[in-house]
């Protein structure tokens, strides 16, 4: 019998494969190690990230689901809540003890109730609605707040580059 974390990850993988939610594809990078996943996220419709397909990497701790996984986009991305190296800064990925931005209540932190699917859905909604209050990428947050048009242009350029399309 495999470990608890492994079983849960397998269950989630199965669930995601059988009933894939819209705009999300996720699974282990290879079948030998269920603790590193790859995910593809579609940019939410009606936003400047529309049509984009963003690859990301999820790394699960051994004690998943008691501790949250780490998520990092593996493509270039320009967003107030994503560090420039792709790490996602979202409150449900923080375990209750830590608070990098010093604003989150423990109610919105990680708990075993969360799952890969919920994380990815949260990330999609985060793409749609950046939270400029807790910016991981200050430049992006500033641009998003002060010059929305420029931010959207930049985001569209990014979307095109993820699709391997030439810039406009």
């Amino acid at each position: 019998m495999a470990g608890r974390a492994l079983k849960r990850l397998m269950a989630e993988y199965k669930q995601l494969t059988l009933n894939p939610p819209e705009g999300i594809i996720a699974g282990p990078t290879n079948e030998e190690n269920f603790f590193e996943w790859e995910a593809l996220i579609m940019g939410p419709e009606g936003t400047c990230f529309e049509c984009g397909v963003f690859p990301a990497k999820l790394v699960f701790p051994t004690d998943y689901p008691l501790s949250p996984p780490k998520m990092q986009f593996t493509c270039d991305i320009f967003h107030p809540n994503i560090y420039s190296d792709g790490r996602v800064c979202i409150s449900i990925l923080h375990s209750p003890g830590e608070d990098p931005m010093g604003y989150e209540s423990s109610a919105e932190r990680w708990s075993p109730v969360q799952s890969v699917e919920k994380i990815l859905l949260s990330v999609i909604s985060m793409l749609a609605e950046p939270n400029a209050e807790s910016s991981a990428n200050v430049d992006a947050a500033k641009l998003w707040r002060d010059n929305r048009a420029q931010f959207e242009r930049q985001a569209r350029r990014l979307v095109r580059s993820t699709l391997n399309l030439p810039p406009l």
Partner: protein
Amino acid sequence: MMPTTIPMGGLGLTLLSTCLTAGVIANAYYQKKQFYPSVVYIMKSNPSIVALYLMAFTLALLLGKLLKKIFFGTLRAAESEHLIERFFYAITETCLAFTVFRDDFSHKFVALFTVLLFLKSFHWLADYRVDYMERSPIITRLFHIRIASLLALLSTIDILLVRHAYYSTMSMGASVQLVFGFEYAILLTVAYNIGVKYICHGIDLHRENPWENKAMYLLYTELFVGLIKVMLYVVFLIIMVRIHTFPLFIIRPMYLTMKSFKKALQDTLQSRLAIHNMNTLYPDATAEELQQADNVCIICREEMIVNSGVKKLPCNHLFHALCLRSWFQRQQTCPTCRLDVLRPTPAPARPAAPAAPPQQQMPAQGAPANMVEFFQQVAEHQERARQRLAAAAASSRNLQATPAGAADQQANPAARGEALPPVPPPLPFPMMGAPFPGFLPPPFPPFPIVPPHLVQQPQQQPGPSSSGTSTSTPVTPATASTSTASSSASAVPGAAAAASPAFLPPFPGMLPPPTAPADFGPLTLEELVALEGRERRHVEARLKALSNINVLVHAALVQMTQYQQLMTRLDLEYPLPPPPPPPAATTTATQVTTSAPSTATSTATTTSTASTATTTPTVTTASTAGATDAPSASTSAAADSSQTSSVSSTPINSAVSSPSSDSDVGTPEEIRRRRLERFASGSGN
């Protein structure tokens, strides 16, 4: 530097070192022609030695690579990353160790340290590999063979080297061997830890169901190994300090070991607590409960079956006991709703009855300090507001000063409170249930919970309002003021006594309030402190919130009452509204009942009704309504209203200033004149 990280460089290095070594040997043999002289030549020539070192290093690397290939196959990216990191630290520490033993520095010494480094890295790799067992769904037979043989090999080598170090130290005295012996002893504990982990994981892998106690065994092993390690480090430190010098190179590993030992200890305690709570606090879920709820455990996403250890939390959420246990080791909240599961439980959890009452006393004890602070803040704010108000109503204030000076002794302290507003009183809080038996009105009567500004509010009024009563009744002013003051005096102690326990449980449906305190006598200081810790914070927060709410509600009520009064008067008595002075009876009632701040005690209510009985019925209802709840916050309302609405501030001003209850007195000039007259006559008496 590592065998794993130099695939291309390794080849070049091997070639280079082989060529160099061959060159050195060929050169020596060419010059000396014979074996023994060539060896001596090589050993005496530094360049040759360097070449040979390089060769030895290369050979060591190659051997390491070979062993790695045998025991681990290909390293995963994370593994080699960790390995490089730790290897770097290990090399730094080795260099530090070299400085300590520079006298013993020799070829053998370097060789021994190299061996130590290699053995260390193999221990680490074995550790990573065994951890990986938990992650990978596919564990092959090869994996088991590799790990088992590696562990056997490593521990054998460790034991042999420890033995060797021990005997050489015994026979030849303390030397570098001491360091090695100690290092290998540490490595032996590591190997032991890995071995236990491997066995546990192995057992777990071969079971049908997850092994419940694996985590516990692992935790205890970690704790045990941590303890041994800490002891080893301490012993080594002492020996080294006595023999050589302070061993700088063990500081970092020693610190890390102690940290992890501390963590293991904490984890163990948390785990024990969680297990204990699990067994005692939460009931097993019944079959119906399982059917009603979604029977999937949210933590492991697997089905929950009756009698398979399903627990129900106070919030009615169901989980596997084991899942819940491991979660509670991290956090004591419900995973679904984040209810703090430990919070409501202490009371039922502790069977010891004597512990309960003192626990409930804690809030009462802890509260005042915080409350005083809070009230002083409010009072300061209030004072500022009041001063603005007073400036606006300067004329009436002047008039008030006169009665204050002329008033009798009981009114006097109160008037002084008005005259020297900015001093926040040192509040006595009779919350410990101590009544004030022989009542002599202190400068600031001991209203239990009323904030200072609220306490001061009634004090502004006795002078004027008592004389107000005097006009409405045929009594002389002096006696009137005395009677009113004494009536308020009689109300105060009763109200104080009634209000002090009554304040804390104001709202039903909240958590059980602290009851009247018993004595702390049988408790030791530690017990008290322990009790204080959590309870106190909770209660302080609660009290703060409550008093905030209280003040707000009172303010609203007072405004409402004043508005009502105003409207009543406007409607009934003045077709054309001049600045309406509210009836003095209202003020009296207000003043009297202020002593019972948030709760209308029967004493206060009866007093107020009695005193207001002489005035018009409409006013009485209004004032009584206000008197039951509102009065304590009237000043705060005044503060607000002084800035916002002139409508509500007007009655307050006049309530404070105007003594007259006669409704036919219209203008402020008239009021003032009458008051002056009255007080002149009063003081004359």
